[in-house]
């Protein structure tokens, strides 16, 4: 067993832990923080089913973004949808036997990487060429795109340029899942890819990637428009009422 395999094993345990605890903690905070007032952006659905549909349109189609800016939508949607395909395809490295639907998307998942690449380049380009977006960009915004692009490029070069020993990689991750450390191929490209992925997991809970859980908790998008029919009151606001008797 090489030291490298041990280091990577520990790295992935730590990164996964940080990711799960960090994102879990944020979700907990979002869930427990009250939304004391009804603030859906109107016109809004008047039923819970309507809200689920509204949210689905936002998450699957990026509906508001589409209304807003066709270029950002095009690049952003391409990147995300391609990313979800790629992520789904990656399940094959963690499952045995590989789930039928993961096999089904295998060919698409493989080429989705180009979609990610194009989307990311488009989004990054806007950060340089559109004055308004350049103005609001911080170094961290560049770094995030660089990180993702790094993952995509190292990943693609394994798929399309020089293959790594994928059976060994799968064995490594299947091993981690059962608590045993098995050897990892010492292929620079792979090691780089994995290091960047671990970094992404680690920064997820402390970065703007929190938009992924955040969108589901956004009161302007997830509230039902029924303020007149149903009294909506936060616990801390109910205390104000309780403090006043009568009236």
């Amino acid at each position: 067993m090489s030291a490298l395999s041990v280091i990577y094993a520990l790295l992935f345990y730590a990164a996964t832990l940080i990711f799960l605890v960090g994102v879990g903690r944020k979700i907990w905070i979002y869930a427990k923080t009250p939304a004391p007032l009804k603030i859906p952006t109107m016109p809004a659905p008047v039923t819970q089913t309507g809200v689920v549909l509204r949210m689905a349109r936002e998450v699957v189609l990026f509906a508001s973004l589409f209304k807003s800016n066709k270029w950002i939508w095009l690049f952003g949607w391409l990147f995300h949808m391609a990313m979800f395909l790629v992520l789904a395809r990656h399940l094959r490295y963690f499952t045995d036997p590989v789930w039928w639907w993961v096999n089904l998307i295998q060919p698409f998942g493989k080429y989705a990487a180009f979609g990610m690449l194009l989307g990311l380049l488009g989004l990054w380009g806007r950060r340089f060429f559109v004055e308004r977006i350049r103005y609001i960009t911080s170094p961290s915004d560049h770094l995030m795109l660089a990180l993702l692009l790094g993952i995509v490029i190292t990943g693609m070069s394994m798929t399309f340029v020089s293959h790594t020993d994928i059976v060994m990689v799968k064995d490594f991750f299947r091993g981690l899942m059962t608590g045993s450390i098995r050897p990892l191929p010492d292929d620079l490209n792979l090691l780089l890819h994995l290091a960047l992925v671990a970094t992404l997991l680690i920064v997820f809970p402390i970065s703007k990637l929190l938009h992924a859980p955040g969108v589901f908790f956004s009161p302007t998008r997830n509230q039902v428009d029924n303020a007149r029919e149903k009294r909506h009151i936060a616990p801390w606001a109910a205390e104000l009422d309780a403090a006043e008797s009568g009236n």
Partner: protein
Amino acid sequence: MADFDIPELKETLEIPPLKEDAMAHSKPYVAKAEFQEALGFPGELIDNWEDVAVKKLGELKGKFRSLQVFLDSCVKCGACTDKCHYFLGTADPKNMPVARQDLLRKVYRRYYTFAGRFFPKLVGAVDMTREVLDEWYSYFHQCSQCRRCSVYCPYGIDTAEISMAAREIMDAVGLGQKYCNEIIAKVHKIGNNLGLPEPALADTLEGLEEEVKDDTGVDIKFPLDVKGADILLVTPSADFFAEPHVDGLIGYAKVFHETGASWTLSSYASEAANFGMFIGSYENMRRVSRRIRKAAKELGVKRIIFGECGHAWRVAYSFLNTLAGPWDFLDPNYPVPQHICEYTWDAIQKGKLKFDPSENDHMTLTFHDSCNVARASRMGDKPGGQLEIPRNIIKTVCNNYVDMPENTIGEATFCCGGGGGLLTDDLMELRVKGAMPRMAAYKSVVDEYGVTNLAAICAICKTQFAKVLPYYGFTMDQIVSVHQLVGDALILSDAPSEDAGDEADDE
């Protein structure tokens, strides 16, 4: 006319190249100690304000999920950057919604996030300094809380929520805005924004009765503090005297008269506006709202109806049940509260009102969707009723109606430029520049369809337009109240004989 450049009205709305700090000088007057204290805030900037501000931010993000989620979730995609009328009118990049949010977010990051605490430069986090506070005071008073940005953000991030929080923090450290806080203090003390006491109000209403009698020959009442009336009308106090607001009030009174309604105003709750929302103060907003509850109980009314006012309708429709409910002592057959447009439209549909729309033939109308009505409330029982019902009413009482371009109305409507507690002379430059997108849309229908007038259902919009229309080459009387149109076209069934002929023609 002005010591600043008035934007040109172009045919297509252009996204301006950035002009950094173009509006850095814009600041409203600071509230005096007396009014700060009346609202429960420190009189002036306290000594340890940095600490208190940061703590207040921490408190607010624990009380408002919107704030916590919005501060974390922005990805700087830039979709909102060209959506704010103040940015379009001033070109100041800090008026781009995301940049405005960032003024607060950079402090949040510094004190409340790992990345900001340890790598401030990387994520643009900064300490709470006097410079930051001054910037807040300037730019959080350049947001009318119109929510246009929230329509276009992929996560619905509403900069209004951020502005409200920032203003609440500034109030908490003793840096309040004069215009809003003086007004709220007046409501707490007297009951309306103008500080109009009961005798003056009674006087004004009596004057109106005489005026309407002279005009129509009909005894139309403007009842005040009538116990046992069915309907409590809560309307913005500007309706009592300002033009064209008062014509709207006359319109409501005529509609009530014609439908045979028993109604009353209250001198205790003589204000629909609720500036507590503008300063983000739940407590003040609640205190103002509860005057309505008290008045409704004391007068023993069965229903509550709100007059034409945008943010008032937001607070009424979306928040009143929360702030001052439950309304179990009112008639359960009616939603609480209702909008006067809902009342009028309902009466029209039931055939209770007869109109002679030719009375409005000297005008070609268009309708300005007030931001708080369009994006923060509803009318009727279907989503979008807040956009349809006022238009349906106008089309019933006027023959000539044209909408402004699609991307400037409905949920995409542009703010009048004076909402959110900015309707004050010390922010005139901002108000004029912020009105540019609306004025450009108006001009396009004036040029293309010969539109002569702009109708609105908001006291702030009406005052703002009366003020800014002349800057753009229009006249102040081009802004009209929707219920003014209703009142002018309404056929009063008990009008003296000369009008009876008209009525017969119509039937």
